[in-house]
């Protein structure tokens, strides 16, 4: 009996240490997503770089979807996917949603909208997650909103002050709603970036319709060769 208890205690300690480790692994995996902003720094006038810009992001997402299909069908063990949450064992992993969100932003949205939304998913999400561990829900919403709003303020600083405030409030609001609203079939890693992007696209179209001046591109492509 003592042996069984000791064994159980050891196992619990091991599992706790793995959980803690996976927690930071997931956070770092999120912040790693900021490297995709390099996409905008790549030159637009070199054929092979243009080819990579066009095909590498969808290739990565297709690869992730394929791996996920194989995992869900049981062809690949879930144990190979370190950092998966328990509820992701039988549904599509959040990393696929994360990648799909970034791909959609890179391909279909202007960079003025895509960049702050990517920052919300890559940095805002883990920061909100950490706030959630230590503070009550109401503080999570307020601080999370302010963090996401800050990303929109930084990237839209060239816009008129009223437009800057409008975009920051709508963007921050969209991101925090995308983060706190949970669905079993749709991950918050997707909604935190796509919901503000959709809301800002509406603002963008209205601004174009009324000939309101919008800020230019945030990141200018580098000149090749570096």
């Amino acid at each position, binding site marked *: 009996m003592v042996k069984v208890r000791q064994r159980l205690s050891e196992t619990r300690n091991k599992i706790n240490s793995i959980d803690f480790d996976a927690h930071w692994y997931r956070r770092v995996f*999120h912040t*790693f997503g900021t*490297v995709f*902003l390099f996409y905008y720094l790549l030159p637009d006038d070199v054929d092979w770089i243009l080819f990579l810009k066009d095909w590498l992001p969808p290739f990565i997402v297709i690869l992730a979807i394929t791996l996920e299909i194989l995992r869900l069908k049981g062809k690949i063990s879930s*144990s190979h996917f370190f950092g998966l949450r328990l509820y992701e064992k039988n549904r599509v992993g959040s990393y696929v949603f994360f990648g799909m969100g970034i791909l959609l932003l890179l391909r279909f949205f202007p960079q003025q909208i895509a960049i702050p939304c990517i920052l919300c998913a890559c940095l805002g999400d883990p920061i909100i997650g950490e706030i959630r561990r230590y503070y009550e829900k109401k503080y999570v919403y307020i601080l999370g909103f302010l963090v996401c709003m800050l990303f929109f303020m930084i990237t839209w600083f060239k816009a008129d002050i009223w437009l800057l405030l409008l975009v920051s409030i709508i963007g921050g609001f969209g991101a925090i709603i995308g983060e706190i609203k949970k669905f079993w079939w749709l991950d918050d890693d997707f909604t935190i970036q796509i919901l503000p992007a959709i809301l800002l696209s509406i603002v963008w179209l209205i601004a174009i319709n009324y000939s309101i001046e919008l800020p230019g591109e945030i990141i200018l492509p580098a000149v090749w060769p570096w």
Partner: protein
Amino acid sequence: MNKSMKYLEKEKNISKIIRAEIFFAPLLVVLPFLVGIAFINEWYIHGLAYGDHSYDIELVLGIIIIFGNIIFDVPFIKSLRELSKKK
């Protein structure tokens, strides 16, 4: 005891998980740092050198990328080291 607990109970599987994590760690830590440096470099070469303020945002983004990653890299590397010591 559920399946996942049984899986983790086996020493061999814990080693596998740690190996997978260590394998990806350099990429997860180093690549964002390099991208941040690339942004700051762009600002330095085209912005600061020519007094062009349209590149200032690249400096800000570079700093955000580097510091945003460092904040989470430090506890990640610490936890990795602790786990490796336990193993």
